[in-house]
């Protein structure tokens, strides 16, 4: 990009008048501000349950719908960040909080979010009666649940992994807890946090599309957004409208990547200690814009100054020294009481659940739901196997060719971020036309969105296979099957496992929307746990929703514990190349 480089030099430092980049930058900022203001007004529109939000299939309105969808994503991201700071820090600082927060997050990560949507929507509508804020909050909450948990977890892990010498520095200089948080903990966690936020964004798009148009208790709620646009287009069997929506979504994801995450990742490069800096640092034209225009740079300096005063706010200077802290440390019986309370809560929650399920269902029905769980699990297992057979060889082929892999990795990441549920209608039409068995042919939908995780992890693994290993293989004449078995597959194994875990997790979530699909008036149903949950969500049978979700959680957690975690630990200790 020579164009961006033209103004890079020492002379521009002294220039005070705006350069031509300033004009662009100004437009950029104004557009962002306008966007926020417009959305805030739209969101608080009065609304009654049962009232139909008119969703038009006019493609001219698509940018408006896309804007609404993007806004939900931003709000959810912001809330996730705040909760990350609060709960991540809390878990890292307090042993007692850690013992509750971390296992809770572990479980919440495995919960099928879409299953919960019906429950949370009812709750939020009750909270904000007569306003669209209720369903809006439920949609935002769905996105929030898809990203907050792993952000909190990463933040907690990185805070705990702060190098001991930095901790000592903070203590030797008597930094207050507030200063320590903003000067050491947050910057230290920044790269990992951003990377995770970006990765969970992909899931976020999927959920926002699903959450905008949802049927609860036979009431269809449509929030203005791309998801509703698609839902209406499906009802109307309007192929053209779906095509427009898919195109819009692609553009939106590209913009999101270019305007939000790429700049943030490029900016966060400076938080990494040097040994982690990649050879080719990530570039972003937005960051360059900020760094190279007078106006924006002044703005940046102001921002930095503001941040500095924020860090040094006097009120937060606690003068609590270790001695006073030690004397505040509670007696043993407080710990005992706390432990007792935790156990009591756990036991009563279990009893409540057991009673609720035993009271509402026969053993037969519970067994039936378990059977459905096995059906879905088998489906996911076969899909992962098939996808691996397809993508592992392709991923290795691509990854070993640097030119191809750079392009392919970018494409695979965008594809992974693309909400696959937008593409369901195309496949559904195909199934209907050829009268195919939905129990088999609906299955690929579950993995449609998450298969990319396998691909781009394998590519990532193959690109870092040391060149000398390949040369040794050449030298010894190790080719064909032996080469795959002894050199290639083992070296990508840890990466592949990471990809497969993510893909399987995504597939469980997707099963809720993928096992029941419709096109116009036709409805296809595949037998499985996902369709069970969807069916009772639509009819508003909360007891059965709870049963379905509980069983699904159980499946996900047990499979994680018994299959994925041991596999991952093995792959990491045995095959990870230093």
């Amino acid at each position, binding site marked *: 990009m020579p164009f961006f480089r033209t103004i890079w030099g020492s002379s521009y430092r002294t220039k005070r008048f705006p350069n031509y980049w300033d004009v662009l930058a100004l437009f950029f900022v104004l557009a962002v501000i306008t966007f926020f203001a417009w959305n805030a007004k739209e969101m608080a529109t009065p609304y009654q349950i049962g009232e139909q939000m008119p969703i038009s299939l006019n493609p001219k309105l698509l940018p408006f719908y896309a804007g609404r969808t993007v806004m939900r994503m931003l709000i959810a991201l912001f809330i996730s960040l705040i909760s990350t700071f609060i709960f991540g820090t809390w878990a890292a600082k307090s042993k007692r909080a850690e013992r509750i927060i971390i296992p809770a997050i572990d479980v919440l990560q495995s919960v099928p979010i879409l299953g919960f949507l019906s429950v949370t929507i009812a709750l939020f509508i009750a909270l904000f009666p007569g306003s669209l804020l209720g369903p809006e909050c439920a949609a935002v909450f769905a996105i929030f649940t898809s990203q907050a948990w792993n952000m909190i977890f990463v933040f907690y892990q990185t805070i705990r992994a702060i190098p001991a010498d930095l901790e000592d*520095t903070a203590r030797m*200089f*008597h930094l207050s807890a507030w*200063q320590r948080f903003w000067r050491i903990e947050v*910057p230290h966690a920044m790269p990992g946090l951003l990377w995770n936020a970006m990765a969970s964004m992909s899931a976020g798009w999927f959920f926002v599309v699903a959450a905008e148009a949802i049927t609860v208790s036979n009431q269809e709620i449509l929030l203005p957004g791309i998801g509703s646009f698609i839902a209406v287009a499906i009802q109307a069997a309007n192929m053209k409208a779906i095509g427009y929506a898919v195109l819009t979504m692609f553009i939106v994801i590209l913009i999101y990547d270019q305007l939000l995450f790429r700049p943030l990742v490029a900016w966060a490069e400076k938080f990494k200690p*040097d040994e982690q800096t990649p050879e080719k640092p990530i570039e972003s034209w937005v960051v360059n814009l900020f760094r190279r225009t007078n106006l924006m740079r002044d703005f940046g300096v102001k921002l930095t100054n503001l941040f500095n005063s924020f860090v040094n706010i006097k009120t937060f200077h606690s003068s609590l020294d270790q001695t006073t802290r030690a004397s505040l440390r509670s007696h043993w019986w407080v710990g005992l009481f706390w432990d007792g309370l935790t156990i009591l809560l756990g036991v009563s929650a279990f009893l409540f659940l057991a009673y609720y399920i035993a009271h509402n269902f026969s053993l037969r029905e519970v067994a039936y739901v378990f059977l459905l769980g096995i059906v879905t699990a088998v489906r996911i297992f076969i899909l992962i196997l098939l996808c691996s057979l397809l993508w592992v060889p392709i991923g290795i082929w691509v990854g070993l060719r640097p030119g191809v892999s750079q392009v392919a990795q970018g494409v695979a990441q965008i594809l992974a971020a693309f909400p696959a549920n937008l593409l369901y209608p195309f496949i559904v039409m195909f199934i209907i036309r050829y009268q195919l068995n939905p129990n088999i042919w609906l299955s690929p939908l579950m993995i449609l969105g998450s298969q990319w995780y396998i691909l781009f992890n394998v590519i990532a693994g193959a690109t870092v296979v040391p060149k000398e290993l390949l040369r040794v293989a050449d030298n010894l004449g190790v080719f064909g099957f032996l080469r795959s078995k002894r050199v290639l597959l083992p070296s990508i194994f840890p990466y592949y496992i990471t990809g497969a875990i993510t893909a399987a997790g995504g597939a469980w979530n997707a099963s809720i929307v993928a096992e029941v699909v419709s096109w116009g008036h036709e409805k296809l149903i595949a037998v499985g746990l996902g369709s069970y949950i969807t069916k009772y969500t639509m009819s508003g049978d909360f007891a059965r929703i709870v049963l379905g979700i509980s069983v699904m959680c159980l499946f996900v957690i047990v499979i994680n514990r018994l299959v994925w975690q041991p596999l991952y630990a093995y792959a990491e*200790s045995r095959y990870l190349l230093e």
Partner: protein
Amino acid sequence: MSEVIIETVNVQKCFKTGDRQERLVLDSINFKMYEGEIIAVLGKSGSGKSTLLRILSGLTAPSGGTVFYRGQAVNNPVRGIGMVFQTFALLPWLTVLQNVELGLEALGIAKVERHERALKAIDMIGLDGFETALPKELSGGMRQRVGFARALVVNPDVLMMDEPFSALDVLTADNLKSDLLDLWQSKKTGLNAILFVTHSIEEAIAMADRVIVFSADPGSIRSELKITLPFPRSDIDPRFRNQVDRIYTLMTTEPQEEKIQEGMIDLGYRLPEASVSEVTGLLEILNAPEHQGKMDLPDLSNTLMLDIDNLFPLTELLQILRFARVSAGDITITDQGTAFVEADILERKKIFSIHLKKYVPLARYIYDQLVRHPHHRALEENFLSLLEDYFSENEAERVLRTVIEWGRYAELFAYDYNAGVLSLENPH
């Protein structure tokens, strides 16, 4: 006599090992630090010298005894003590200037003054022109200069340094040392005393007015030496060499050394981190015609370019295995050592195996357990939990890893990494 700045009274430190056991790492440390002196604390790795530094600065609380800083008992990091770290401990996301300002921010000093003082400190330490650089743009030496500027900008009374030059190459370290000494002598810093920890004998003698020699297991003060050589000190000065020899002799006649010589080590002995190939290489040099099986330790250290942290573990293993003897600063190869080094690869393994079984109780214990077991197998966790009664978790792991490496070389036992299982190499 000048005023006492820091005084320790019977300072002790224990670390928990295993369930209820404790290991003494520092035992009855008593010393005084006076105004106007530079003290070097010299010891092998693991002798507890860094722990002492942390206790003196208030970062770690002692298990027994008291540290006084200007008459006040130290319980927390003391304002007035500046600290420089081996790993620099700079915040990678802050510029040089912001890093230096950190301590002033914590003091709540207003922005303008903060800026001014930081720039002055940067000036003084020779970092002009690097104010806006990020630490990762700087070389190791420049990074440590930031470390110094950051410690000095808050006008500390005492400067404490934990192996401040050991992460730097020789030239850079020398350059930084002489700059620091110049700064100290010019009295521009307001510092009243410097205390640093090192494992380099030369470094201690080159900089300190007083060297405190530490002995290990448990860490305690072996002796104190006053160094009265005039500055600048040259390490080829015969008086300098004399001091080096004296300290080597002191360090090789520690009570611990006598324990090894008499074969009095037990299961809980901290086996040195030495690899078989390293000690074999050392024996080959000793056995070379020009050395006739005997060398002066300072010479050996120079020849191999190893400091005592890397050299002493090797000599220790050689002593344990009876392949060499160390006394009064000299190392001499034994007959068994000669036999070992002159044998071929397979024969070497045999000799090593015999000595390992005979003189390393832990190796013998593992071997016996495996022989006794019906399938000649045992989980590594069993031995690990045994060692954890003596050491911290990390140290136990290190000791076991070391003995496994020796045992594998000697073909005394085999080890399956994935299963974590030890077994007999050739079950009989």
